[in-house]
């Protein structure tokens, strides 16, 4: 309660200051750093409304140095950041030329540690670069369909345990170009509250009616389903042509895992179709790394459309859609991406093939399954320690996406900067990606993190947490936080 009040107060003070500064800028008392419209075009209708950019100018600019941090190495478990300095309070940045080495990376989506520049994946990608080149310069339906693409698609289908799959060059575009191909006017989309922007854009572009149900709330979903089938389309009362339920495997801002068994039960009962976006969960969940379907031990044929991306766990780029053969054949001829967008680059395709073989164990080693296990262990350990320290963590116990609540606007900037000072790179998110009073820091655990790195990170997080008073939770274990670790507790056991 106290925290909520203080958060609102914080935003209130920032807003007042914002108005004050705008006033000063308008009357030219303060120097204005914002880019200006051209002289000849001053009498055109203004391109941006002043009010739209209020948040950007006054709140975002103050803490802008926490985002868009350039790196100059592999985005693996440790990375090198380029040092930036700002002499005018974040309006412009200059590069000092120095590089901050070996920053522990808790921000990149590198769940299985395949972001590497050595090893079998990188070697085969290098071979393909020299043989095939980098670009393709044509679309899938014209002359850009390489044999490597077909092989990769067969492999993705085998990996997921479905009949066939199709791959696209960009994960965002996979959603926004294929949802319109599947549903149109006269269909209903039931989407979760916290769905990603790409799913929302795809749903909007399709032209169907969209109804939102509360996050991971099965009663809300069932209520909407019953109401939709019983009452039909609004105003005309015709029955809906199709109902598509759109959910994600792991929600990237909450860290929560979808309740898949219940959703599938609902879908079967009401004969709706299920679109599962496994952008974060493919490769990261499940005993064999096959995603959220594997995690719950369900049959992949129950999910009508399985979608995922290769950016996160496979260290490549692009997205895929997998499902029954009829679905994929339809998409091959009717997807916007197959007709108008250039096909994937050959080295990227090769990286996907090699990393997938590694996870499946088809390359003859056990590296893949070891990494999957390491990720699961790291996740459980990290979450347990954070909770013991007294932080408020959202999300399911098994999800490698760990959001840590900050709440107050000032702490967003302070947390990011303090962690960087101590050589740890984290991601902080505030409004508009999250509700305004629920800003958070989000950690992404990787299989590449060793226990030492995690311990180091945890100690630093605890230190910063004490400094900034972030340990809001009331369930704190006095043992780990109050006393230093090397103490008398274990002496009698050792003897």
């Amino acid at each position, binding site marked *: 309660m106290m925290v909520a009040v203080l958060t609102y107060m914080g935003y209130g003070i920032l807003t007042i200051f914002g108005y004050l500064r705008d006033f000063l800028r308008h009357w030219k008392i303060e120097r204005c750093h914002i880019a200006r419209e*051209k002289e000849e075009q001053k009498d*055109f*209708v203004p*391109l941006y409304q002043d009010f739209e950019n209020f948040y*950007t100018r006054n709140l*975002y600019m103050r803490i802008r140095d926490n985002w*868009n941090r*350039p*790196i100059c*190495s*592999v*985005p693996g478990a440790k*990375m090198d950041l*380029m040092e930036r300095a700002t002499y005018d309070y974040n309006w412009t940045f200059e590069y000092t030329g120095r590089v901050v080495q070996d920053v522990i990376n808790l921000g990149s*989506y590198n769940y299985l540690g*395949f972001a590497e520049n050595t090893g079998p994946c*990188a070697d085969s990608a*290098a071979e393909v*670069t020299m*043989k*095939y080149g*980098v*670009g393709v*310069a*044509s*679309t*899938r*339906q*014209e*002359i850009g369909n390489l044999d490597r693409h077909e092989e990769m698609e067969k492999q993705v289908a085998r990996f997921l345990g479905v009949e066939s799959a199709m791959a696209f060059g*960009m994960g*965002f*575009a996979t959603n926004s*170009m294929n949802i319109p191909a599947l549903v149109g006017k006269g269909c209903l989309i039931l989407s979760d509250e916290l769905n990603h*922007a*790409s799913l929302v854009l795809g749903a909007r*572009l399709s032209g169907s009616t969209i109804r939102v149900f509360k996050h991971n709330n099965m009663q809300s979903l069932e209520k909407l389903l019953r109401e939709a089938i*019983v009452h039909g389309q609004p105003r005309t009362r015709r029955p*809906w*042509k199709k*109902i598509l339920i759109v959910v994600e495997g792991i929600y990237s801002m909450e860290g929560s895992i979808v309740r898949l068994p219940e959703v599938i039960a609902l879908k079967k009962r*009401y004969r709706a179709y299920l679109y599962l976006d496994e952008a974060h969960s493919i490769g990261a969940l499940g005993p064999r790394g096959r995603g959220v379907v594997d995690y719950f031990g369900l049959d992949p044929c129950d999910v*009508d459309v399985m979608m995922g*991306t290769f*950016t996160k766990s*496979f*260290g490549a*780029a692009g997205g895929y859609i997998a499902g029954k053969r*009829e679905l994929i054949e339809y*998409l*091959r*001829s009717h997807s916007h991406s197959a*007709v*108008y*967008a*250039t096909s994937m*680059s050959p*080295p990227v395709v090769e*990286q996907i093939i090699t990393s997938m073989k590694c996870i499946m164990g088809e390359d003859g080693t056990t590296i893949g399954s070891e990494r999957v296990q390491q990720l699961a262990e790291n996740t459980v350990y990290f979450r347990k320690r954070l909770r013991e320290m007294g932080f408020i963590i959202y999300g399911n116990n098994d999800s490698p996406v760990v959001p840590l609540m900050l709440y107050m606007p000032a702490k967003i900037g302070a947390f990011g900067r303090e962690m960087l000072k101590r050589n740890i790179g984290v*991601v902080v998110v505030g409004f508009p990606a999250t509700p305004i009073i629920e800003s958070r820091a989000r950690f992404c655990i990787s299989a590449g993190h060793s226990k030492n790195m995690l311990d180091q990170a945890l100690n630093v997080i605890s230190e910063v947490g004490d400094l900034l008073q972030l340990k809001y939770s009331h369930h704190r274990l006095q043992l780990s936080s109050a006393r230093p670790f090397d103490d008398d507790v274990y002496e009698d056991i050792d003897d």
Partner: protein
Amino acid sequence: MATGQQWVLVEMVQAFYEAPAYHLILEGILILWIIRLLFSKTYKLHETYKLTEKEKEELIEEWQPEALVPPVSKDYPTLNYDVVTGPPSHKITINGKDCINFASFNFLGLLDNERVKQKALASLKKYGVGTCGPRGFYGTFDVHLELESRLSKFMKTEEAILYSYGFATIASAIPAYSKRGDIIFVDEAACFAIQKGLQASRSLIKYFKHNDMEDLERLLKEQELEDLKNPRKARVTRKFIVVEGLYINTADICPLPELVKLKYKYKVRIFLEESMSFGVLGDHGRGVTEHFGVNIDDIDLISANMENALASIGGFCCGRSFVIDHQRLSGQGYCFSASLPPMLAAAAIEALNIMEEDPDVFRVLREKCKHVYNALQGTPGLKLAGVPVAPALHLELERSSGSRESDMKQLRSVVDYCMERHVALTLARCLEKEERFLPPPSIRVVVTIEQTEEDIQKAVACIREAASALLIS
């Protein structure tokens, strides 16, 4: 206190007696009405009848959805792709046959360039393949920053912004600026990516006839009259013109100087899509602005994809900082998507280097285009659509049979005939149901700088043979 209460009560009773009669009656009626409303049953407008649970269950049981996707027959023309084994460069192996490539947009022949490949390899050894994150969360590499600054220097603008997918570039740029209530004037022949951007922006779209400046002026004048009727609304309604430099569907060039004149006369902003003309038109390859000698600051936003002349993947927008900086927070394809893999960015930088070192390639390419254009004139049964300087031409049927399907079949037989004789061509593909103004079926002929004189002659001869054998009957 008791006396206080009494005193107030006495005053009240006095007021009661002193009030005029109609006042009391009115108050009484109002009180009765409030009581009635409080106790009447509320009902929602659309549930004027209530269904019993049993009826609802029956409805749920009866409802049958359509199949998720309609079945596609085995010989649907776009179902079976042509498979390319090996690199898609000048000599291409398609469906098992070695052919000369007249179908991929490899205008400057950079797909196979050794320098580009070496640079991509070096970048792979340094950064790996993927970036594992969007630009905001440790996905910005120094290669991206370098490519953006190189592109902005090359195009002589203030700033450039990089996207990881060519289609998403213009489809994210348009909705970042134009919202519901704004007005966009678009050419009818605009490509599909622009159409999707327009749809996502929810603005009012007005189409003008292809390359017809009088039609555009007519629409602008109508809009001006509307604005005079409602000046308050006009002051906040933004207006944009979206055109392509070199149209992909019709292979001709937009009249840019007239557009700039219209821009200043009617106060609209211009967004220019230069996917086909970047690296092709102009003395240094800077596109249609250089071709016409228009000042690049007059164009508000130039968007292009790097998948044609630059032989990489991705796209970029360039323009003044005032315009481009906005996309860093509100371009959907930029903020919510992983960044471009660094090896592809490094390949694009090297391709830019090659373009800057040798500006003569553009002149050579233009000559080849002219040559092919002249050579393909007068093909029996086919007519050539495009301008002499366009590198991607369209061969349409002179006499259409009336049904699009049979036209496509005929053109496909021409393409197959040519492929048998080792010339790779392709049909220009589009989604028939989704395009607003469907272009006629055509064969795409692409001119690249790697094609030699004899390649061109062989291809032209082959097409003529195919056309006379299959189309004139």
